[in-house]
């Protein structure tokens, strides 16, 4: 299982109701059901992934984070998960609002655009960065809303979300001592993970 999914699953209380947005092949919801007894469901935009997940007995529906969250009632879920997708949605701010409307807590992971390699490449070459994390050229990347860890803290403050937990890791999922300092995490973290609550 991808390390950010593993880290997320460790933050989810057993027997919770969970919605995984962008659930892919359903790895996380299956893991949450089997190991934590969660009522975990998924939304996925890629129809082949949806078919694959449903064929494995997982409750996944075809849908779009930008448009389909509006159809869930308030507070239906304990956790709403959005892994490595925030940067690819059309309206990240609205998606976060919907997540914290339909869920008590939101778990969000995203690749950090503030990493030193990204900054250095832009400064040195004057061109859009290409790294292991940001590996598609600007004209074909689905990642239309990249943000940094600091950007995300600012958005949470602006929207009034309480950051219950957060961590920054490298692409292997290892945490480093700098994880307690947002400024350093924003330089050295390749992936970020936030657990938010309605304040």
């Amino acid at each position, binding site marked *: 299982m991808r390390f950010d999914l593993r880290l997320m699953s460790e933050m989810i209380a057993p027997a919770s109701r969970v919605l995984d947005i962008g659930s892919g092949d359903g790895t996380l919801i299956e893991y949450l059901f089997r190991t934590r007894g969660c009522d975990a469901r998924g939304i996925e935009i890629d129809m082949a992934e949806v078919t694959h997940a449903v064929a494995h007995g997982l409750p*996944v529906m075809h849908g779009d984070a930008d448009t389909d969250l509006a159809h869930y009632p308030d507070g239906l879920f304990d956790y709403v998960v959005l892994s490595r997708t925030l940067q690819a949605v059309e309206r990240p701010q609205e998606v976060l609002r919907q997540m914290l409307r339909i869920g008590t807590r939101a778990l969000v992971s995203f690749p950090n655009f503030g990493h030193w390699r990204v900054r250095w490449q832009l400064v040195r070459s004057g061109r859009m960065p290409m790294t292991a994390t940001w590996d598609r050229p600007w004209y074909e990347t689905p990642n239309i809303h990249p943000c940094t860890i600091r950007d995300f803290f600012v958005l949470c403050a602006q929207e009034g979300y309480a950051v219950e937990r957060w961590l920054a890791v490298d692409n292997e999922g290892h945490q480093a001592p700098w994880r307690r300092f947002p400024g350093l995490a924003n330089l050295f973290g390749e992936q970020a993970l936030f657990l938010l609550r309605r304040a």
Partner: protein
Amino acid sequence: MARPRVTNTQAEVARQVHAAYAAVIMDHLDIPSRDTHQSATFDGGFMLDCGVALPSVTVAYRTYGTLNPARSNAILVCHALTGDQYVAEPHPGTGKPGWWKEVVGPGRPIDTDRFFVICANVLGGCMGSTGPRSPRDDGPDAPPWGTDFPPITIRDMVRAQRLLIDRLGVSCLFAAVGGSMGGMQVLEWAATFPDQVFAAVPVATAAFHSAQNIAFHEVGRQAVFADPEWAGGEYWRHGTIPARGLAVARMAAHITYLSEQALTRKFGRRLQIPATGTSSLFGDMFEVESYLRHQGSTFVNRFDANSYLTITRAMDYFDLAADHDGDLARAFRGTATRFCIVSFDSDWLFPTAQSRAIARALNRAGANVSFVEIASDKGHDAFLLDEPDFHRALSGFLSGCAEHAGL
């Protein structure tokens, strides 16, 4: 090449077309008499949604597989407009294989080695359940109901099915599965008896019959009405059937079950070689015409015209949200049923948008819902055909639900 040569009179054409149906009219129905169908009869009155009480109802049905000791492995399969209870075995009238043999059987997605499968002929049907062909009363020479048979609803069909499953000793269905009108019944089951359906699979269906679909049905009904042999619905008095009208209704309907791509792939603009060689306006026949005529003429051998009128009307009346203050989510509020909604991307009769509307209403109701659109070029009919992705999804969904149900 393919240019029609116009040398014939219209009267001659009419004679030719009529001759094509004469054999059908002479041949008469393949439908076995009602006594040959397995059935259960429920006395003591059956109040229809229209307010008319039928003195009794008979529900013809077939079962496959074995009911487990806990009586918890029953799956109800709901058939579509012109389907019947012979879902997984040859049709006794036509000898053709069961209409969902790809889906129901040993080792199939609805696995009869694992589940106890029930399929009932709908109320209003013509394969043994109470309908327009049933005698009006118990008298020895009682005439059939004909078009005096009261209008029925999808919910009436479902309530009749519930009597049957009670009689079979099943208090809670593990699943209800059906496509098209069968999907309407599945939705109605989940809305009306939520505690008695653990899982629901409405396929290629909608929560209401659209204006376009009502319009197509109306064309079919007018074709039946326009056939003099229909005789105001009392054709049995003359020992005939409105074969031409019903065949035209079937032809028009059949087009709606296919897709433009499927028709092009199967027939294109190919011509059949004219049998006589004489040149006339309709001397040449496109393959698609021949196919539709075949569909029409074989249909009248197995289906009753008045049943067709009754059941198409029941579909037209269907509007689940309207029964719940206009809000489809209310129909499912608080439901514990697990849903799997399936649509096909080339189905323009019950397009994906209508399935998505159901899925969203279920989201609003907080229900557990899977929703998948299957890629297929076969149109609405895809749900009946060999569609591996659909079959995998159905099989996986049922297995997942079986795990949750402790089966």
